[in-house]
C-alpha cells in the first residue's frame, strides 16, 4: 500500500488532506453476536471512502459507530485529532457528521423544501416560540437558512419538486431529497448508506455525479456504503472491505480488487 501518512494526491488531481477520523480497534457486539471485530481504518479530509462487503458484513453498523448511534464495546473513535468521548448522536451531528439512510427516512407528509429545512434545525438558535411567531430575528434567521437550502436545492437540481410532498415522489428523487437534507447540515463528514440502492442506471449516474460534485464543490469528506462495484470503483479513493465484521482489506480500488481474500469473500472459495 502506498504511503499516505501526509495525505496524497488522487489520480484526478485532488489533494487529500490529513486524517479526519480514525477508528482504532473497533469491536461491536450485540449480546453474543459480534457485529464488528477489531476493525481499524481512517478517513482523510476531502476523501471519498467506500465501505464494502457482503450482506451482514457490518457495514451499516460501522456507519452507526461513526455517527455515534452505536457505542462500540472496545476501541476508540478519533475525530479531528481528538478522542471522541461517548455522546448522543445529536451532539455528534452538531460536530459536522451527517448521514442518509439505507431505507429512506424523510418526513413523508412534508414538502421537499420543508424536509431540507429540517437539516438546518440544529443550527437554528431561536427557540420554538420565536419560530412560531416568525417575526423579527426569527424571520431573519429563517431567511438565512432558507437561502442555504435553496442553494442545495439548486445544486441537486430538485427545484421542480420544491413544494411536492416527498411521500408522492419516486424513489430516486426521495434519495436525492435525503442527500439534500444531509447537505443542509453543511457536514464535514457525510455518511451515505447505499445511496444508489434500487436505482436504475441513469439514476445511478446522476447520483454518482452529485456525490462527486458535492465532494468537489463543498470539499465534503464522504464515507459511503455501496453494493454496485462499478460505482465504488469509479467513485472511491480508498476502499475498506469488511466480511463477517472483520476487515479483509483496505486500499485503493485497484489494490482491493486484486486482493485474494476479497475475491474469495465475494466469489466464494472452494475448501
Amino acid at each position: 500500500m502506498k504511503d499516505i501518512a501526509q495525505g496524497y494526491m488522487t489520480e484526478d488531481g485532488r489533494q487529500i488532506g490529513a486524517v479526519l477520523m480514525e477508528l482504532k480497534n473497533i469491536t461491536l457486539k450485540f449480546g453474543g453476536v459480534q457485529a464488528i471485530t477489531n476493525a481499524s481504518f481512517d478517513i482523510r479530509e476531502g476523501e471519498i471512502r467506500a465501505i464494502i462487503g457482503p450482506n451482514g458484513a457490518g457495514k451499516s453498523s460501522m456507519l452507526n459507530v461513526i455517527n455515534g448511534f452505536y457505542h462500540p464495546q472496545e476501541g476508540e473513535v478519533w475525530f479531528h485529532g481528538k478522542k471522541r468521548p461517548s455522546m448522543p448522536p445529536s451532539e455528534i451531528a452538531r460536530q459536522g457528521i451527517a448521514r442518509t439512510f439505507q431505507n429512506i427516512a424523510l418526513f413523508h407528509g412534508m414538502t421537499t423544501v420543508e424536509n431540507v429545512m429540517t437539516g438546518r434545525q440544529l443550527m437554528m438558535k431561536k427557540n420554538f416560540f420565536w419560530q412560531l411567531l416568525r417575526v423579527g430575528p426569527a424571520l431573519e434567521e429563517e431567511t438565512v437558512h432558507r437561502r442555504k437550502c435553496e442553494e442545495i436545492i439548486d445544486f441537486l437540481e430538485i427545484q421542480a419538486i420544491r413544494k411536492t410532498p416527498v411521500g408522492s415522489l419516486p424513489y430516486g428523487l426521495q434519495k436525492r431529497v435525503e442527500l439534500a437534507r444531509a447537505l443542509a447540515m453543511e457536514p464535514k463528514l457525510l455518511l451515505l448508506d447505499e445511496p444508489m440502492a434500487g436505482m436504475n442506471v441513469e439514476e445511478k449516474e446522476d447520483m454518482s455525479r452529485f456525490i462527486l460534485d458535492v465532494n468537489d464543490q463543498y470539499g465534503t469528506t464522504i464515507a459511503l456504503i455501496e453494493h454496485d462495484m462499478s460505482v465504488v470503483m469509479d467513485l472511491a479513493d480508498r476502499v475498506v472491505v469488511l466480511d463477517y465484521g472483520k476487515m479483509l482489506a483496505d486500499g485503493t480500488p485497484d489494490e482491493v480488487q486484486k486482493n485474494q481474500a476479497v475475491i474469495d469473500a465475494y466469489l466464494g472459495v472452494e475448501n
Partner: protein
Amino acid sequence: MVSGSETGGVLQSVPAYVRRNAKTFSNAPAFREKQFGIWQSWTWLQVEKYVTELALGLLQLGAREGDHIAVIGRNRPHLYWAMMSVQMVGAVPVPLYQDAVAEEMSYVLSHCGARFVIADDQEQVDKVLEVQEDLPSLDQMIYLDARGMRKYDHSKLHDLEKVRESGVEASTTERQELETRIGKLNFQSICVMLYTSGTTGKPKGVVLSNKNIIISSLNGCKFDNIGKDDEILSYLPIAWVGDFIFSFGQCVVSGVRVNCPESRETVLSDLREIGPSYYFAPPRIFESMLTSVMLRIEDTSVVKKWLYDYFMAHATQVGPLILDKKPVGRWALIKYKVGEFLIYAPIKNILGLSQVRVGYTAGEAIGPEIFDFFRSLGINLKQLYGQTEASIFVTVQPDGEVRSDTVGVPAPDVEVRIGSNGEVYYRSPGAFVEYYKNPESTAETKDPDGWVATGDAGFLEPDTGHLRIIDRAKDVGKLSGGSMFAPKYVENKLKFYPNILEAVLFGAGRDNCVAFINIDLTAVGYWAERNNIAYSSYQELSSNPKVLDMVQEHVEKVNKSVSEDEMLSGCQIHRFLVLHKELDADDGELTRTRKVRRKIIGEKFDDLVTALYDGSDSIYTETEVTYEDGRKGKIAATLQIRNAAISDGSTSMAAE
C-alpha cells in the same frame, strides 16, 4: 453614443437597440430568471452594462469580426446577453439545441467553423470536449455554470463571469475598438445563424441579417400590439427561430420582458407564477395541457364534473364568438360570465394562462378540439405559419379571423403566392440571406427576385385570402392507383386523438396506405390504470390487445373522416401496427423540434413496412435504441398487425 445610423426611427442593429433601451427604458426590468426559488430581475441599464463588459472580455479573448460563436444551453438571460455581446464584437451568434448529442453538435460546430463556444454548464462543455478533435477551428470555450468545472484544464476554458470581469478592466484602445466595430454594424450585417432542424438530411445554416430580424420583430409587435408592458416566458429551445424572434428580437426592439424558468422541469409552475401576456407553444404543449385538465376533471367530484360539463358545453358555443367580439344574446353572455367565475377563470389560472392576451401555436397542425377548447375559455389562441428562412413570419391569423383549419393571411410586408405545383412561395423583409456554405441549396430555395420556396403544398382560400397547408410538398405523392397521397393530413387527424402521440403513414407508389402508430404513454397509461390493465413498460402497454382495439377504433374513425374528402379518400389506412418504442430524436427518428423523419423511419423499420404490405399477422423485430447518455442498446418485440375497416364515403366495408 448610439451607433448604427437611424432610418425612419428604425435602428439597424441589435447593439444599437440595446443602447436605446438602456436610455428609454433604463430602470424598467428587462429580464427575469428564477434562481434559488426567487425571481431575480435585471434592468435595461444593467443589461447594457453587462453586455458591453462581456463584449470587451470577448474582444480580449480574441474574438474577431465575422467569427461564428456557438451558444449552447437552456433559456437563460446570460446566454441571451452573450448573444448580444457576440453581435457587438461583430461576430455571429450560432445558438444550438441543448439536447443535441455530441455528434450532432460536432456537425454544426465544424460546418460553421465556430471559434468560440459559450456553453451553459458542464454537460454541454463535456459534449463539445468529446468531439473537439474534429473541430480544428475551435479556439476558446466559455461556460456559465461553474459547477463541476474546477478540475478541468482552464488553458482554453473560461468562466463567463471572469471573461466579463476582465472586460471591466479593458483599456481605452480596446474600448475604442469595440465602438468602431459596433459602428460598422448595419442592416446588412449578419444578426444570427440558425440551423434548421433538418427533416431531411443534414441541418442547414440559415443566415439572417439584422434587417431580417429587426423588421420581422417590429412587424410582429405591431401586428399584435406587443410592447414593453408584455411578459413572455422563454422556454423553447434558443436554437429555434421562434424563440430567437420572441425572446430576443422582439425583446430588443420593443422591450417585451423575458422571463426564464428555473429549470426545464419547472416550466409549468413558473408559467403560473409569471402569468405571461404573450405566449407561444407548439401544439403538443396545448395538447398536454388539455390532457392534464381532462384527467383531473375525471377524478373530481360528481358536482364539479357536472358543472364543468355544463359550462364547457356553453363555452364551446359562445366562447369563440365573444372572443371575436361577435354579437351573442344577453342571456348567453350572462351565463358565460357565471361560467367564467366558476370554471373558466380557475382553469386558466391553473394553467398559468390568466393574463394571456395573445397566444400562438405553430410548427404543426393543431387539433380543432384542442384549439377550440382554449378559445372557448377566452384565450386568444391563434395560428401562425412560418419557417426559419422567413425569420418565422409567413402568415398569421388576425384577431377576429381565427380558425383551426387555416394558418391565416400573409403577415405584414409578406407576399405569398402559390406555384404551379401547389407549392407555397413567399417574399418578405424577413427572407433569409443564404444557407451558409451551401450556394446550391440557396439557389434551389430562393430565386433572384427574392421568392422563397417553403417546401409546403397549400392553397389560398379564394373568398377569405387565408392560407391552408396540406402537407410537405415533397411528401405529397401518388398511390399506384393515381390518387393523391398526403401523409401529414392523415397523421394529423390521428394525432388529434390524445391516445396517439405520433403516426407515420406510408403509401407513396403503393396500392394503399399503412401506418405506424405511437401511443401516448400519459393518456393511455391513465386509461389503463382506470381500467385495471397492468403493464410494466411502454412496450407491454403498446402491445396490449385492448390498447390495439382502442387504436383500431381511432384509425377507423379517421378513415371515415378521410373518405369524406374526395381528393384524399385514397389515403385511408388499410393496415397498421403500434410501435414498440417511442419515436425519439436521439435515435434520429424525429427532428429536434419533434417532426417525423418519414424516410429515415421507413428505412430503419423496413421489416415492419414489408410486413404491413405482405399480409402477415405479426412480425418479430429488433431495434437499436440510444439512451440519454449516448450508449446504445437493443429492444426486441413481436408486433401485432391489424387490418382496419375502410370507408367508401357512405357505407363501410372491411378491408381484405
